[in-house]
């Protein structure tokens, strides 16, 4: 069994390293620093950590103000409150003026578990992706989280990093290189391409193994950079395998599936099947049965792949 670690934990751990290298890095949280793991940074650099209380709109506004003064603020809360409640502050006070604010939101997706539908953000990628000047990153594991945090520091402008609550397998090792706007090939294949993001990447790998047993050669692409998205990789996958499946822990509307559909429509129309949350709110439950309930499983990806292949 591979090592497991939640991407929020990787975020909290790595922030300390980033903060060590970057004296201008400041962290803001909205009364969830235990859950978002920014409390680790707070312990190391108490003078650079600000808990603004349960006030997500002000979290984003103050982050914008700090950015105008040359600070590099990381603003953290749950995805539902950051991307949802504070949406218009992110739009008008961060993206519109293109301020250098990093928005690292945790507890994205159904894998929040027991807190239920009110707290399970399945819309955040769509909301952040549509904003001009915004970069959207969705790490698959702890290592990719670290690499994306490093990449975020090199971008002069707003970045959204989508993080999860639950432990997920560590897929990469330290040699992994993340490049903004570039997908990473996880496994090559010739019949169908599974483009996955976040915790669905590990499940896509499982699905590819299952498909192999059934005689279908599936390639797996990890799309960590949702915006900018790797148009060439998608186009190439469409041309070489002729069928695409997307897999994400997000609504199939507007997220990775939406983004890939846009690229395919523009560049290389081929059959596309989108695995994700099907225009529904989540609900309370343990993570594994929840993921099954909402069709976020290796089996669901296998079924989608077969369907995509049959449509060729």
């Amino acid at each position, binding site marked *: 069994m591979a090592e497991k670690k939640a991407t929020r934990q990787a975020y909290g751990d790595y922030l300390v390293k980033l903060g060590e290298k970057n004296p201008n890095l400041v962290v803001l949280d909205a009364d969830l620093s235990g859950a978002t793991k920014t409390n680790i940074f707070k312990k190391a650099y108490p003078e*650079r950590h600000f808990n603004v209380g349960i006030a997500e*709109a002000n979290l984003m506004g103050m982050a*914008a103000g700090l950015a105008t003064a040359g600070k590099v603020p990381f603003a953290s809360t749950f995805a539902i409150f950051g991307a949802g409640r504070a949406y*218009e502050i992110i739009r008008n006070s961060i993206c*519109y003026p293109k301020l250098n604010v990093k928005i690292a939101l945790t507890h994205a997706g159904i894998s929040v578990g027991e807190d239920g539908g009110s707290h399970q953000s399945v819309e955040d990628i769509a909301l952040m992706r549509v904003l001009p000047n915004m970069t959207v990153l969705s790490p698959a594991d702890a290592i990719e989280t670290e690499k994306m945090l490093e990449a975020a520091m090199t971008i002069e402008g707003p970045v959204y990093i989508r993080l999860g609550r639950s432990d997920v397998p560590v897929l990469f090792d330290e040699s992994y290189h993340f490049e903004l706007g570039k997908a990473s090939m996880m496994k090559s294949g010739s019949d169908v391409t599974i483009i996955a993001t976040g915790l669905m990447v590990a499940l896509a790998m499982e699905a590819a193994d299952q498909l192999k047993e059934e005689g279908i050669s599936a390639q797996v692409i990890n799309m960590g950079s949702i915006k900018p998205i790797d148009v060439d990789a998608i186009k190439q996958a469409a041309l070489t395998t002729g069928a695409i499946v997307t897999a994400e822990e997000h609504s199939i509307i507007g997220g990775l599936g939406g983004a890939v559909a846009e690229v395919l429509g523009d560049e290389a129309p081929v059959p596309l099947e989108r695995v994700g949350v099907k225009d529904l709110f989540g609900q309370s439950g343990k993570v594994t049965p929840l993921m099954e309930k909402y069709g976020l499983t290796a089996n669901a990806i296998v079924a989608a792949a077969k369907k995509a292949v049959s449509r060729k």
Partner: protein
Amino acid sequence: MAFLEETVRGIRKDIVKMIGKASSGHPGGSLSSAEILTLLYFEQMNVDENNPQKEDRDRFVLSKGHAAPVLYATLAAKGFFPNAELENLRQLGSILQGHPDMNKVPGVDMSTGSLGQGISVAAGMALAGKMDNKSHKIYALLGDGELQEGLVWEAAMAASHYQLNNLIAFVDNNNLQIDGAICEVMSPFPIDAKFEAFGWNVITVEDGHSFDELRTAVEAAKKSEDKPTVIICKTVKGKCVSFMENNAGWHGKGPNAEEVKQALAELEA
């Protein structure tokens, strides 16, 4: 003193002219806050029109961003950009957007327009100043109707919590918002007691068009030791243009050519 009076008169004329030319914009709340901006930019603030990004400058955030014309006219008068640019207000391709854009206009410290956000950003600026032990001030201008935005009070709570005594906010209390009288739409009163309860140093200026009263308030605000200050300025919406004064109908409407002519005649009288 005559200098400030002459300057604000010119700024008012520019406000009327540019909104007239654009046939669109917000004259009422621009005219009501003209003395506040004139005092800040021509007397109180440490800014350099030849170096708008000067590091330790004082900052100004127009939280009531729809009053962009008063900011543009003031910045032009101060020399941040040519006065002729004012003719391009709200035109396609202009640096002078309907609401201020910090990346387009020299001297604009923050892009604003969506109410409630400017004061929150100003609190972040003030916090950065505190972290770096800077002595510059962050000024912000709020509308009285804007106080209906919940974000204002989130920011007010934080500014007090972090003891941001380098933050000085003005409330342009002209008593009118786009749909009518603020006390009829959704009363923000008592404004002073609210800010006081949030831990702010509160100063009320009975005549928000008096440079003397405004100056006294700003000087006192600068001395606040551990609290942010709010200066509540009682003002007249549409000030100095008779047909616009105290008329909510002139919140967001451009005067026609005849109205511009009349307004300018009154301002020159």
